[in-house]
């Protein structure tokens, strides 16, 4: 089977765009990715579109109505926060299978403000604050506290994740925020769900990202200079675990995906030069250091203390600023992190460039649960 290559990839600067529609945001990113590839919408053989908020409203087709109704097949998909990665993977699979040579993947989201989650709905009375909390900050706080019970991870160590990612975002003009947040600022910010303060929660933003994926034959025809090879594409759901009815298990679903991805790529975590992982809350990033094999179990706290995951460290994580500061437009996130890693592999990440990056990993988690992992490789 042919290898699959990213020939064009881009994202809009994340922010709040209430005056725009979802298809308009998606169309903007799609055109940017097409320009990056030097191709036109007429060259695309299929479109894979990821969006959550309007999952039943044919967003992919409406993007084509903005940029060119060429009559190609469109797949609209929704998979919680793994939506963008799922759209990208469906695009990858169609090329890998030899069905298509050139396809477009778009992830787009327009977000409201405020808390996500909650155990409302249905009949009877609201359960929030009665049967614990279903809010996302609380759910991921509980997952972080599970790590604390096992390894003694501290509030301060969780907070350091946010300090690091906010620092990284000062080097990324496409991030929602470019603001340094010292440790005391993070720890003294409004407590949302202990141990997650407001600055340890991802930012609700609007955003869109897109990628053009091509076959090896097409890549050779177009030129390999800026091509990025997709070494692994994996999607998992959560295997059964004892507490998963009341405590979504983001660990097993990630570990399963990571081991499959390393096997597919024929490499190990020691070969990876940078990682964009799903820091929807600061607590989550700590868990995923271990889930992705970036360190041994129980070492994640030491890793953040010693700066191993900061830009310049042993294995930089979320140099884009991550979901904590770049922002988290749900359906766009899984392609935006592919843009970030590809940009480093192309050597085009400017001030935040991870020097000599040859192999990078992206990771997203959608609660419910889905995990998408991609391993990307520099070609030229």
């Amino acid at each position, binding site marked *: 089977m042919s290898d699959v290559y990213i020939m064009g990839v881009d994202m809009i600067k994340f922010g709040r765009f209430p005056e725009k529609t979802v298809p308009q945001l998606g169309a903007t990113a799609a055109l940017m990715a097409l320009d990056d590839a030097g191709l036109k919408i007429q060259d695309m053989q299929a479109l894979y579109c990821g969006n959550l908020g309007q999952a039943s409203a044919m967003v992919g087709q409406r993007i084509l109505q903005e940029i060119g109704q060429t009559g190609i097949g469109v797949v609209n998909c929704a998979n919680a926060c793994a939506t963008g990665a799922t759209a990208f993977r469906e695009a990858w699979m169609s090329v890998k299978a030899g069905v298509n040579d050139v396809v477009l993947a778009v992830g787009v989201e327009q977000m409201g403000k405020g808390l996500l989650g909650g155990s*409302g709905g249905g009949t009877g009375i*609201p*359960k929030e*604050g*009665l049967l614990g909390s279903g809010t996302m900050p609380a759910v991921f706080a509980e997952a972080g506290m*599970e790590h604390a019970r096992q390894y003694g991870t501290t509030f301060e160590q969780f907070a350091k994740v946010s300090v690091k990612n906010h620092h990284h975002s000062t080097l990324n003009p496409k991030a929602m925020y470019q603001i340094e947040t010292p440790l005391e600022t993070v720890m003294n910010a409004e407590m949302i*769900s202990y*141990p997650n303060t407001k600055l340890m929660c991802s930012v609700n933003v609007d955003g869109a990202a897109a990628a053009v994926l091509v076959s090896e034959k097409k890549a050779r025809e177009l030129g390999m200079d800026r091509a990025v090879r997709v070494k692994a594409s994996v999607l998992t759901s959560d295997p059964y675990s004892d507490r998963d009815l*009341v*405590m979504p298990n983001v660990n097993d679903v990630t570990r399963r995906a990571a081991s499959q991805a390393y096997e597919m790529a024929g490499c190990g975590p020691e070969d990876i030069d940078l990682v964009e992982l799903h820091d929807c809350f600061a607590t989550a990033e700590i868990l995923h250091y271990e889930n992705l094999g970036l360190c041994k179990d129980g070492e994640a706290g030491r890793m953040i203390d010693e700066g191993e995951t900061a830009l310049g460290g042993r294995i930089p994580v979320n140099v884009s600023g991550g979901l904590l500061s770049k922002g988290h437009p749900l359906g766009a996130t899984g392609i935006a992190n592919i843009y970030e890693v590809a940009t480093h592999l192309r050597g085009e990440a400017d001030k935040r460039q991870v020097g000599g990056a040859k192999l990078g990993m992206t990771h997203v988690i959608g609660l419910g649960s889905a995990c998408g992992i991609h391993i990307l490789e520099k070609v030229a």
Partner: protein
Amino acid sequence: MGFNLEPFATYLIGEIMSEEAAATGPLPVVDWLKGAGTDDPYLEGHKCGECGAVFLGERDNCSSCGARDKMSPTRLSTKGKLYSYSIVHRSFPGIEVPYISAIVDLEGGGTVKGNLINIDPDPAKIEFDMPVEVVFDDALGRKDRDGNSYISYFFQPAA
């Protein structure tokens, strides 16, 4: 994905309780709370006869081992240990904070999430694996649109 504010709005506005509804007595907050309105309320799990996995609520098949039609009801213990928690300081409008959202492993199987009460919402006071007990009480005064009151379960430090 988003939180459905619909039932919430009803709760916040409040509805006039009808005499008829009030006469039926308290309803269970979840369908796996049994014996609501009696002096012997309890939580009911469903246990897989093949692998022993315990679920909350009725089901036909086991999501742990895939066994079909092997589920049988089991009365869950009122004794357990605190597995994990968060102290919630910001919730939806109208929800009193702070409160402790707790995950408790029950003796003999079953993990349940609920509010941990009768302890300071302070991480220094809360210990992992602390013994807790399940208690039953009115659902914080919350009523549905027909004016029915509800009985809920809570965790508190074991006596």
